């Protein structure tokens, strides 16, 4: 049996104590992961960009994360004179708490997590929806126009992308017939849900990037335009709270996404082996997931705000509604599960293939040499 | 394919309508093949339905509960109100479906030739399919609501088809006229349906009939509601005084005229009355109304047809006249005769219209019989088929019209005194007269316009073929009254035993009636032949000179159009004048201005309340709410 099991088998006051211990463990693990995620990102992106990344602090720069942490903790905590004091100071916490709340219900292995909620999936997106409030507080409270613009962009983007995100998750919930994350994972014993719902997966992945403000949807924090957006005025520990939120929610989304779509701890053979292997599976999947996010970030330019909105409302939303409708038909009429795969993968292949094809069939730019045209009416 | 799947008959043309209307333009050949296939498939399936129906009927007791196949589907349940829809197949609707599908198929095929190269070719076929689908739905519907829906569908499609050449102002006007005129009747029908539903709580026709015949509805109430329904039938069937739209409806393409007259539109009224005839019988007064309206229509239109020179208009008036005959038969409680005549009339009238269309095409759109004549040499097949149709219309034995009209004569004996029979005979003579005149002046005699004559030619096979088929049907359709023919076709006892009201009635050849009606027909024909073939047209001109008033009245269609126009001009405008006077001097000066003065005065006081500020208004609301709450507490203690 796993060391920390779901559910409240323990009665009375001990239940509270139990929860506190679990939360402490999960938070601690998450903090360490986040610290090294920053290091990992720098290394990963550096490799993509033919650089080495941090190399000086410790072997291969391994202590860079710790050094950064100390630097951030000891930095002066500045507050602009024009900032709204309470809003400014509360914002990082309001941003961070929802991420912690999400971690409560994520199943890292079978029966291994803080608490199993029967409305787990709903809880996750209700909680993650809250973190925008902190960003808006930061944008409003900083007394800075870049921050304000960043907050505006974040709000607009978040409202738009929440819809396809939630609908794609609901598509999976329709297939699973439950919102309980543990049950959803167990249902993926034979095959992960990505097989049944590739289109929903693609939409979820895209919308997740947007919710995380990662490239190519990093418009609220666009460095070359609004110089970091909502956290432009923060420094030191408060800035590191934002950093913690960013990477923490990246981690939370990765675990959540791998639980919902990639089979979490269950697939392959997770249920048969043991909790160690299950933990390994969960973390492997979520790190691959994170690596893919970083990879995207390293290669893809940023979208413009109108393109972003258009993509959400004109592409993702119709497609996810289509997926939704198709699932409904298949479930109501009891058509075989292969049809789910077929219809959904046609949509996913169409969406991805269209973009890839346009990239592939573009002429090479050095070959775009117009023949030398003598200017009109030249007499010389 | 059993009779319980009769909805497929409706679904095929309806699907064709949808496909053609949405993408007909881009289909190969603009989709006419699709239309023909759809209605042709309906026709083929109709025979399956008929066979199944007859097969089920075999060996059953002769009670009409067993003679029908009804299918119900629940559409919606709101409270205790159930809305069902379904199909109802009994001999009546079976005959009607047959008429519609056979005539529809032939007319559709004919249209391919007739409409060749027209603008909006695909749209014509789309609406044609919609027209047929609506009509099929009308006859197959088991409840009045669906029937009304289909009724309106027929009206809309006829509007679209009559106004098919909407670039032509006259066509657009005719379409509007047809639509508005029938609309008056439609409102009546809706009122009647609602009245019946109010009384019985159901839309199902059989339930309503049961309720009516068992006396659950008061007689006066029933009479009123039936009269409203009959108003609908009058509008749709262009009966007097609604007959004005039908001749104008000739502005549509000729196949449309054929369809309107023969199969779909005008006979919808006949079908409706026949369907509800048991209820009419409960109130004999309503039957009398039906009979009188039929008689008046038949005689009046006979006169009008004599004075018209447009081929198609003559045919139009003849249609109204024949409808009058059918209503007379209905009024005499002889639906068998009415439906029999409906069927034969459908065939010979569509034959006549198609032949007339053939003439029009063959003479390059000339339809004035003053300029035609002697065409039989140029278009022999058309001439022969037209002749067959004309003889059927004139009720010359042994063509089909004779048998059905004979049935009607036979039926009129139900009315004591013989006055109905007498007037009917007069109308029949008129029929024979104008029919012969039409044929003679178009095909025989000398060509009156040499240019038209020289350019005339026989039309192509796609148009001639339906003519020949229809002519053959016209020749033989009348014999379905005989037992032997009926047995060969699956309904032993003949047509009158197939469609019946109370109990099947074996057709008995009453020689004296037959002879009388034959004499009437031959008399009419010979009289007309003597006048027109013998080039004694001067007789009619002399008549016109002798009594110019009468002639002008005939030419001007008894001044009905002018009467209506005058009614609108004088009555409505006069009434409007009174109303406007009242409005200007009573309402405006004292009412409105007085109110305005009062308002201005009170406003000058109350304007200080209107700050234009939303919070102040909100405060008012909240104060009011608090006041109400306190009052409530005080009142309740």
């Amino acid at each position, binding site marked *: 049996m796993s060391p920390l099991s779901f559910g409240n088998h323990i009665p009375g006051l001990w239940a509270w104590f139990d929860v506190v211990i679990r939360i402490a463990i999960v938070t601690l693990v998450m903090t360490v992961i986040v610290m090294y995620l920053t290091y990992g990102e720098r290394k990963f*992106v550096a490799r*993509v*960009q*033919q*650089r080495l990344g941090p190399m000086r602090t410790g072997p291969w720069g391994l202590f860079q994360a710790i050094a950064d942490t100390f630097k951030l903790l000891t930095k002066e905590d500045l507050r602009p004179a024009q900032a709204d004091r309470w809003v400014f100071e509360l914002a990082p916490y309001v941003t961070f708490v929802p991420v912690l709340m999400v971690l409560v219900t994520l199943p890292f292995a079978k029966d291994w997590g803080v608490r199993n909620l029967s409305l787990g999936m709903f809880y996750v997106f209700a909680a993650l929806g809250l973190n925008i409030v902190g960003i808006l507080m930061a944008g409003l409270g900083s007394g800075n*126009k*870049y921050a304000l*613009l960043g907050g505006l*962009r974040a709000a607009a983007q978040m409202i738009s992308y929440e819809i396809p995100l939630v609908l794609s998750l609901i598509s999976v919930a329709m297939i699973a017939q439950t919102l309980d994350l543990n049950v959803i994972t167990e249902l993926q014993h034979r095959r992960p849900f990505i097989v049944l719902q590739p289109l929903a997966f693609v939409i979820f992945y895209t919308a997740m990037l947007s919710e995380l403000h990662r*490239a*190519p949807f*990093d*418009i609220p924090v*666009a*460095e*070359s*335009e*609004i*110089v970091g957006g909502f956290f432009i005025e923060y420094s030191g520990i408060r800035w590191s709270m934002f950093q913690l939120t960013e990477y923490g929610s990246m981690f939370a989304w990765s675990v959540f996404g791998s639980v919902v779509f990639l089979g979490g701890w269950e697939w392959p053979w997770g249920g048969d082996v043991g909790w160690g292997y299950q933990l390994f599976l969960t973390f492997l999947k979520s790190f691959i997931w994170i690596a893919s996010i970083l990879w995207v*970030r*390293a*290669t*893809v*330019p*940023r*979208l*413009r*705000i*109108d*393109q972003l909105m258009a993509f959400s409302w004109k592409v993702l939303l119709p497609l996810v509604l289509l997926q939704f409708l198709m699932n409904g038909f298949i479930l109501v009429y009891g058509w075989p599960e292969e049809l789910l795969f077929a219809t959904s993968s046609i949509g996913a292949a169409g969406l991805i293939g269209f*973009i890839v094809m*346009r*990239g*592939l069939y*573009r002429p*090479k*730019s*050095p*070959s*775009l*040499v*117009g*023949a*030398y*045209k*003598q*200017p009109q009416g030249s007499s*010389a | 394919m059993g009779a319980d799947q009769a909805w497929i008959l409706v679904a095929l043309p309806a699907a064709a309508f949808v496909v053609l209307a949405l993408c007909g333009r881009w289909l190969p050949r603009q989709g006419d093949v699709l239309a023909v296939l759809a209605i042709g498939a309906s026709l083929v399936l109709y025979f399956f339905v008929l066979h199944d129906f007859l097969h089920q009927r075999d060996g059953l007791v002769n009670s009409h509960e067993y003679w029908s196949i009804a299918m119900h589907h629940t559409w919606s349940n709101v409270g205790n109100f159930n809305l069902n829809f379904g199909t109802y197949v009994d001999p009546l609707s079976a005959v009607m479906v047959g008429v519609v599908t056979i005539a529809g198929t032939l007319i559709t095929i004919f249209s391919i030739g007739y409409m060749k190269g027209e603008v909006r070719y695909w749209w014509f076929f789309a609406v044609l399919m919609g027209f047929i689908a609506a009509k099929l739905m009308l006859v197959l519907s088991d409840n009045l609501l669906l029937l009304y829906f289909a009724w309106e569908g027929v009206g809309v499609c006829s509007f679209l088809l009559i106004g098919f050449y909407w670039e032509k102002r006259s066509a657009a006007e005719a379409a509007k006229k047809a639509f508005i005129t029938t609309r008056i009747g439609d409102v009546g029908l809706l009122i009647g349906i609602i009245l019946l539903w109010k009384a019985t709580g159901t839309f199902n026709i059989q339930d309503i009939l049961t309720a009516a015949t068992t006396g659950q509805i008061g007689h006066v109430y029933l009479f009123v509601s039936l009269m409203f329904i009959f108003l609908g039938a009058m509008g749709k069937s262009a009966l007097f005084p609604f007959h004005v739209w039908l001749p104008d409806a000739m502005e549509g393409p000729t196949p449309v005229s054929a369809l309107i007259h023969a199969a779909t539109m005008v006979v919808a009224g006949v079908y409706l009355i026949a369907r509800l005839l048991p209820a009419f019988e409960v109130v004999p007064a309503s039957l009398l109304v039906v009979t009188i309206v039929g008689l008046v229509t038949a005689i009046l239109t006979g006169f009008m047809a004599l004075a018209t020179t447009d081929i198609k208009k003559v045919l139009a008036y003849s249609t109204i006249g024949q409808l009058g005959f059918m209503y007379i038969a209905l009024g005499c409680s002889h639906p068998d005769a009415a439906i029999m005549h409906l069927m034969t009339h459908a065939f010979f009238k569509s034959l006549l219209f198609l032949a007339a269309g053939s003439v029009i095409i063959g003479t390059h759109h000339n339809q004035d019989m003053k300029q035609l004549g002697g065409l039989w040499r140029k278009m022999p097949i058309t001439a022969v088929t037209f002749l067959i149709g004309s003889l059927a219309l004139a009720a010359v034995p042994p063509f089909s019209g004779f048998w059905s009209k004979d049935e009607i004569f036979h039926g009129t004996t139900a009315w004591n005194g013989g006055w109905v029979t007498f007037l009917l005979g007069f109308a029949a003579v008129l029929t024979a007269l104008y029919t012969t005149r039409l044929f003679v002046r178009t095909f025989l005699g000398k060509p009156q316009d040499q240019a038209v004559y020289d350019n005339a030619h026989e039309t192509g096979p796609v148009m001639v073929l339906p003519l020949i088929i229809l002519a053959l049907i016209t020749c033989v359709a009348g014999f379905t009254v005989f037992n032997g023919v009926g047995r060969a076709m699956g309904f032993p006892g003949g047509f009158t035993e197939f469609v019946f009201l109370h109990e099947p009635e074996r057709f008995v050849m009453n020689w004296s009636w037959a002879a009388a009606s034959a004499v009437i027909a031959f008399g009419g024909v010979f009289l007309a032949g003597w006048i027109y073939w013998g080039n004694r047209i001067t007789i009619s001109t002399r008549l016109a000179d002798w009594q110019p008033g009468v002639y002008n009245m005939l030419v001007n269609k008894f001044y009905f159009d002018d009467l209506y126009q005058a009614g609108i001009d004088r009555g409505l405008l006069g009434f409007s004048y009174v109303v406007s006077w009242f409005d200007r001097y009573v309402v405006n000066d004292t009412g409105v201005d007085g109110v305005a003065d009062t308002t201005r005065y009170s406003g000058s006081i109350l304007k*200080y309340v209107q*700050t*234009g*500020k939303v919070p*102040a208004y909100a405060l008012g609301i909240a104060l009011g709410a608090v006041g109400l709450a306190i009052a409530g507490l005080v009142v309740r203690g």
Partner: protein
Amino acid sequence: MSIWPTEREYIAGPEDFETVDMTINIGPAHPATHGVFRMILTVDGERVVDCEPFIGYLHRGLEKLTENADYRQAMGWWDRTDYLAGMSCEMAYCMAVEKLAGIQIPERAEYIRVMMAELSRIASHFIAIGSFGQDVGSFGTSFTYAWRERERIYDFFEEVAGDRMFPTYLRPGGLQMDLPENYEPRVRWLINSIRQGIDDLDGLLTGNEIFVERCRGLSEINTERAINLGLTGPMIRATGYAWDIRKDVPYSVYDQFDFEIPTGFGTGDVLDRYLVRMAEMYQSTRIVEQCLDKLPGGLVLHPDLPKTIRIDDAECYIRTEGTKGEYSVYGMARGGNKPYRMKLRSPSFCNLSALKELVVGHYVADAVIILGSLDIVLGEVDK
């Protein structure tokens, strides 16, 4: 303000319907301005309704300095105008001095000058495209890809002249010194590496749907308006007008080479400016190759050059195709060893003056891209 006003208290006039647009300040220390450039954007939501550029933060008084220095002394300052392509700036200055003094320089020197100018054009375009990719929002990858090739070119410059960015390699009258030993395989390897780098960038950026969608149709301008605004270089070529001083008013030995003038799709949008630069780099490698093939022997410095150049009354106007556009020098001498007036027509300056017209009506995010597509160098703008 009372609740129950007795008089008509408020009548809305046009002044009540004025709305306040937000102004945001981009620069002088902003990641997107590539230097100390500042613009004040007036935005309505995310849309730019007005743009006012401010320059001069890097103004060093180049022209005044030149007036007060010996003809050779001023060399080093002219390097620092377009500091991403020092060689081509030096070339224009030297040509102006030579024209004023009437010096004919050896042919070998001309070929080496062209080679250096083209190499520095490639280096400058690499920086332009790499940082442009960053403006569009790619997280530095395009920048490092471009930087690699640019570093290789600068390594070669270092071997040749002893300095990377400001080589001061050229002299009025020729070159400081001849090319190093074994330069030919070195340059050929360099050309191959550059072409590989162009392909890499092409795959990274041109093959990227988002990048192209960001740039396509953005800030379009037609040829006539572009000429009127004084746009030159890739900016005017992107409008579909194949104008290149190297071809149309040939100077130095450019008439000896076979190369083409890219015009992209000829719509004048940001994508075309980018494509023109990409294609131009490729054409420049062709010129460098031909330089290697045709390089004559002989001296690299005019043999009879006096130690101090003294020029009597003379004026000239030298037009060259710099990396950003037309890099022209007006020179005026009135005796003595110093020029009386040296005026630089810097392409970045003229292109930047059209910024307002290009930016207004687009999004804030696009303003940054448009600025990046102008490819300005503040050393050149501010002189």
